């Protein structure tokens, strides 16, 4: 499935992220996910006659922080506007959003393009708005049910320029965006819970052309796994249309997961006119200078800066730094392990291996303290336990806690380095294998590995495998 040669894909993304507030954008109702239908509602988010919106300050603070994280210019004065359209899950018949004067403009996000190296996507604008409710088509037979728990949940809409040249780039950008917003504590960015949603504008043009082709809007891409799939399908479709001599029609398409296809939204042919106008129920949004200061301050080191620092300061390969910084807590953990005395590269290897595997099985929890992991690493480095045994110690500490050295001892995993004890096992093995000893001495040097295995077996794994070969050679070559 590749597009015909000679076509360039152009993609821009509009991303909606739910801001991590306790209450909704314009009322005090809980914004929690998963409550029974229509229980987190009040006159304001139900759009009852006479109700009025009041702006949630925390939502504005988080949006400001997001804007800073995305290197945007924050406008101290912005305007709420009504976006008018009829839909059963939109209780007021309009969505309170921002239009001509958004909260922030002109930012950027650097992301690793699989084709072009590090690329900076432009952030055209970031604005705040309220979410709509949900229409449930599978709850009641032959009818649509409406759940308004989500109505009024605060969102930031983040719009990029037409900066992506492939579905893969679009996905890489989204991963970078998600990392940044999670770092900043702005949003969970959990696509599966709908706290990050993406609409894409897609067009294709002849390679080398500068004018943009006619774009379509692809909606309903609700999983990271589907981003590439949906966008690839749409690119192929457009190229197919153009190569057959047709023209692309500007329209909105929905990605259908089950059918694995994009298809036009089922609405009558009509131009979209949202009749935006300034929201008369809300004065202009003026962000106090103090909030700007505080939110700039609340911004932690962001993934790109952290990656750069980890490679520079700890000499880590870029790939390791990339893995370690996907989640801020993991990067912090790495630094704590190093601070507890571990060398950076072994620490990184342990984290990318054992620690993340364990965390994935336990809801992301980092169950072994940085100090304990540093001790495990030290035990392996000193040869007190083998690498294999070290992993067992790690697992045991993760499960039951305890001091790694004591745990290793209690599990009988401490390696024996005592020359006398080692010599005993070596002599025992050589005495038991006269035929193999003869063959070795006859020139079959590769039998050394066999003897090492036998010694390890005899010692029940406790013999230090680094010392055993030398000792064997001394005896056999004597």
């Amino acid at each position: 499935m590749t597009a015909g040669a000679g076509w360039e894909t152009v993609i821009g993304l509009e991303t909606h992220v739910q801001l991590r507030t306790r209450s909704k954008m314009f009322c005090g109702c809980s914004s929690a996910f998963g409550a029974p239908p229509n229980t987190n509602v009040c006159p304001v988010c139900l759009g009852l006659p006479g109700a009025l919106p009041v702006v949630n300050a925390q939502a504005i603070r988080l949006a400001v922080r997001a804007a800073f994280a995305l290197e945007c210019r924050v406008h101290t004065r912005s305007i709420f506007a009504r976006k008018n359209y009829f839909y059963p899950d939109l209780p007021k018949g309009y969505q309170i959003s921002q239009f001509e004067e958004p909260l922030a403009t002109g930012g950027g996000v650097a992301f690793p393009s699989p084709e072009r190296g590090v690329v900076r996507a432009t952030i055209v604008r970031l604005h705040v708005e309220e979410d709509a409710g949900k229409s449930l088509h599978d709850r009641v037979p032959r009818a649509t049910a409406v759940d308004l728990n989500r109505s009024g949940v605060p969102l930031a809409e983040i719009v990029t320029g037409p900066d992506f040249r492939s579905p893969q780039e679009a996905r890489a950008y989204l991963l970078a965006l998600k990392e940044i917003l999670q770092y900043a504590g702005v949003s969970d960015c959990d696509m599966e819970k709908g706290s990050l949603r993406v609409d894409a504008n897609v067009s294709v043009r002849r390679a080398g052309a500068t004018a943009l082709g006619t774009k379509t809007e692809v909606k309903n891409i609700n999983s990271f796994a589907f981003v590439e799939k949906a966008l690839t399908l749409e690119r192929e479709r457009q190229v197919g249309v153009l190569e057959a001599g047709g023209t692309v029609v500007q329209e909105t398409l929905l990605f259908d997961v089950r059918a694995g296809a994009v298809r036009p939204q089922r609405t009558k042919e009509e131009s979209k006119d949202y009749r935006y106008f300034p929201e008369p129920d809300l004065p202009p949004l003026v962000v106090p200078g103090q909030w700007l200061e505080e939110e700039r301050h609340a911004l932690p080191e962001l993934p790109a800066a952290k990656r750069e620092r980890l490679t520079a300061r700890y000499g880590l390969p870029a790939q390791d730094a990339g893995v370690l910084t996907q989640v801020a807590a993991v990067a912090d953990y790495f630094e704590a392990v190093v601070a507890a005395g571990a060398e950076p590269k072994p620490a990184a290897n342990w984290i990318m291996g054992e620690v993340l595997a364990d965390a994935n099985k336990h809801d992301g929890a980092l169950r072994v303290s940085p100090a304990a992991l540093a001790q495990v690493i030290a035990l392996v480095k000193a040869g007190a336990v083998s690498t294999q045994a070290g992993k067992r110690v790690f697992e045991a500490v993760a499960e039951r806690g305890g001091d790694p050295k004591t745990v290793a001892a209690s599990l009988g995993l401490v390696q024996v380095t005592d020359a006398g004890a080692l010599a005993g096992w070596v002599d025992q093995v050589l005495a038991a294998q006269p035929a193999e000893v003869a063959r070795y001495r006859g020139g079959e040097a590769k039998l050394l590995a066999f003897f090492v295995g036998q010694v390890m077996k005899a010692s029940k794994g406790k013999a230090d495998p680094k010392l055993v070969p030398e000792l064997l050679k001394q005896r056999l070559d004597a």
Partner: protein
Amino acid sequence: MSHDAIADRLAQAESLHALLTPVVDVRASLATQLAQLPPPARAPLAGLPVVVKDNICTLEYTTSCGSRILEGYRSPYDATAIARLKAAGAVIAGKTNCDEFAMGSSTEHSAYGRTHHPLDPARVPGGSSGGSAALVAAGAVPAGLGSETGGSVRQPAAFCGTVGIKPSYGRVSRYGLVAFGSSLDQIGVFGDTVTRAGQVLSVISGRDPLDSTCMDLDPLRMPEPPRDLAGTVVGIPGEYFPTDLDAGIRRACERVKERLRQLGATLREISLPHTRHAIPTYYIIAPAEASSNLARYDGVRYGPRFGAAADVRQLYRTTRGQGFGPEVRRRILVGTYVLSAGYYEAYYGRAQRMRGLIAQDFRRVFEQGVDVIFTPATPTPAFRAGERMADPVAMYLADIFTVTANLAGLTALTMPIGRVQGLPIGGQLMAPGFEEERMLRAALALERVVSATEEV
């Protein structure tokens, strides 16, 4: 007064068709409300019956906005103004008729029938808050609440011969006032006297965390009546005294000007040159906001549905097509049009700029030393029912002297200044935003020297 005494008075006024709540329901509710009055020390309005326009949300009674689309609708909450009235000891004596969603100037555009003028049943009481105005003027209750978008309290107050106050935009919380034109709407007050209206306004005014457009100000304080108006400069705008002004109204206004001079006020001719654009400006901005504000009445969550619908589009079409009356439909269409892509700038954008120029007219004269402005409240006395129903523009012109205060965010009041051939005539005082006390002082002084009922 006992609940029976209040209800009996309302029953006597039943022929006006001003009250939408059946008197029997009011009687029952008043008994409960009077039994739960707050302690007298905290109840400046203890036992005062207040009727409330049908577009202000109350826990008692239905809130239907004079529309079929909200027939039987009960609000699960009290508007802020209602909660404050109750806290001050007032009792809510029923909901009053109005033009549907406050769109009209005669209380003829109600789905529940027209209200009659208290002095001549063939005439209109004005509107849109005609029900409250008629009941206060008829002496059935001492006070009432209405709402103002372009004169809907002052104009019916003038037609019926009572006091009507439009507070400055942001003086009274709009929380619980069903929205028509959000940037213009304010809850207003009717009273049998300036003092009564001012007292009720004081109780409902002041900051409200539920309305972001309500100013962060303490409640209004009712001023003492002044001995005279020495030192007060009263502006008389030529634009409000056109050559075709009703002769009786002109005579009544001349008498008021004479009294103002006698009180020691200085009269100054002023000009508000953009006044002639006020009605067209208003009829772009208010319908634009209304088209959006009324989008929520879609039959999905509340209100009647008027029959089965095959799909959601048909549900919208039947609910809104049958639920709204012709005047509301007209304004939704106008508002939708003026906000449409390609027309926004030509209509809404220009109207907003004109609104700024109208406000600037007022700012200029107030900056040049004018304290209050005096004008007639309406160009004619109450007209006959049916007379203007076929001519929307003639109907709109009934608000020509009142819309400017809404567009400019000012405070204004009308008060009876005499009668012509038995019909009340209203005079209007206007003051800068949040200068209610200044305006009320002038009104208190005038009230003592101008007969409300004398023929001129």
